[in-house]
């Protein structure tokens, strides 16, 4: 893996942290669950709203050309809703990240460092194998999102 000197390699490694334990810690799972509970539905929603618009633009030209108000068309109106969606979802995400995700992320990070220190104190080597991997708590599978 990447060496940490100079500029080569990726980010520096922290050998004292047991990343596997950190990944399975309840604090980290709580962070993932919380973030996913917003990001996953929000992503599905914005993709659906966007592709709905694009598909209408492709297949329902006449509908999109209908006038809602004098010369303002359905198409232009729907396009404006896309802009509003981006701004609103962006603002909501910022708020949620500040209020909900960041405190959980700090907790998860603190927990990982704590475990790392405890282990260093015990003189126990950080576990390297992946054998205990079956015990992931519920919701712990890594679904691409």
């Amino acid at each position: 893996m990447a060496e940490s000197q100079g500029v080569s390699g990726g980010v520096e490694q922290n050998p004292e942290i047991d990343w596997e334990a950190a990944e399975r810690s309840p604090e980290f799972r709580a962070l993932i669950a919380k973030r996913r509970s917003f990001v996953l539905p929000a992503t599905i929603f914005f993709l659906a709203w966007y592709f709905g618009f694009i598909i209408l633009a492709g297949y329902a030209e006449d509908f999109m050309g209908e006038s809602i108000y004098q010369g303002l068309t359905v198409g232009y109106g729907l396009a404006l809703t896309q802009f509003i969606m981006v701004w609103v979802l962006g603002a909501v995400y910022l708020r949620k990240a500040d209020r909900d995700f960041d405190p959980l992320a700090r907790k998860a990070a603190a927990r990982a460092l704590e475990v790392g220190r405890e282990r260093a104190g015990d003189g126990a080597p950080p576990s390297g194998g992946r054998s205990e991997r079956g015990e992931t708590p519920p919701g712990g599978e890594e679904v691409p999102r």
Partner: protein
Amino acid sequence: MSGFVLAAELNETALSIFAVVIAITLIITYWASKRMTGASQFYAAGRGVTGPQNGFAIAGDYMSAASFLGIAGLIFLFGFDGFLYSVGFLVAFLTVLFLLSERMRNAGKFTIADVLSFRLNERPARAAAALGTLSVAGFYLIAQMVGAGVLIQALVGIDFNLSVLITGAFMLVYVVFGGMLATTYVQIVKAILLMTATIVLSIFVLETVGFNPVELFNRAQAESPAGDAYLKPGLFLSSPIDTVSLGIALVLGTAGLPHILMRFFTVPDAKAARSSVVWAVALIGAFYIMTTFLGFGARAVLGTAGEEAAGTGGNLAAPLLAEELGGGSGTFGGDLFLAVIAAVAFATILAVVAGLVLSASAAMSHDVWSNIVRRDKEVSEKEEVYVARIAAVSIGAIAIFVAILGGEGLNISFMVGLAFAVAASANFPALLLALTWRRFNTTGAVTGVLVGTISSIVLVIISPTVWPGADAEGGALGFYDLANPGIISVPLGFLGCWLGTVLTRQEGKAERNFDELYVRSETGLGAEVAEEGGGLTQRKPGRAPASAM
């Protein structure tokens, strides 16, 4: 390109405004070069750029001349369809915000490849990521250079080849001497100039219709030979499946553009990374709404008579509109407005190409040189920055050469389409899966990037944009007539990643390191810390992210 020239002779007003813009950017570059201390300054401006500053810089990096002049031109010529591009370009930032911006900041250092090589075998992973970065940056860069040449020739009256050379020369000065610091500042200045010019022009346009946008649509429609169809989709993008395909490439492609992703390494922490995206969408969104005023305004004001003068793709519609609103050709106001728009367009191009060259040179030096070629040796920061500068000059020289060789006839829209297609089909799947899929392995990343890149290139080459078939109806192959490859190449990129992964053995290392990458990218633990005194303004040292201890 029609080779149409707005300025029959050298436009001196425009030239003097150019000179002012260039003087400002050179002062910035000189100042930045004095503060250039190492690799982190060169690639990432010392990671001290604030969220709002980075938001402006992202906007400056993203709003190319293609969006300023190109989209206004498309709306002028084809009405509603031009606006579809704007919507896709904007919505794409939600993909960036939700899936990548904070994770990139937390897990990366200077390049996309840092994230991949963190958990995968370094050499192949870096090589694949560098290939993706260089293809996207290369195609985009050449498109921008050709666009620059055409525009400067038309607006200022400088010959195409000379225009390309000038653009390339300034781009290289910023990058080579000022690195990311100068590039960031140039992008911020450009974003402010572009927003101001667009706001002023929009006010002038709206004034002609009593500040009633609906009246603007009606007048624009009345001036269009297409009539009712002008305000409907389908004038430009006539095939529905092509429209959807374009939408896919736009909404996922931005999340694979190396010069945009690189900007997230310049901020101190994940919080600044996400706030910069929201600043950027506020600016970019407002800008795209105003481009509809410019496009429809050009149609309402210039009418059918303006079509020929606006050239192929309607690129000169916005400058012509400015001239007309300023008082018309030959008047003082008209000349001044035209000159200002020309200078803004020039600044726009410079900021975008500088960002592109920087991202490409980082891939060459940080990935290819330091971690592939000289992997077994210790590469000093000094050497790496030196290599990055040489790489920038070489990449710039190649882009200038290709742009001049291809000439003004080179099809820009296919190059931009190609850049977005490769970004969406190669870079995006590999990055997303590396950050979220435990089983993902090196073979998967390499096959995914290769399949995504090659399929995009092949599909664009056989598309009707590049290769009108014998009957000039379909593409080179009768059955394939998509101009935008996204609907095929993006799934192929993901499929490549998946097949490469499941068909080869599990990589214990990749999975073990996944834990670390996953925890780091989500929590910011151990993320790169901002340098003391980094960034655009002197800041107090020790502003490390709270979670990075």
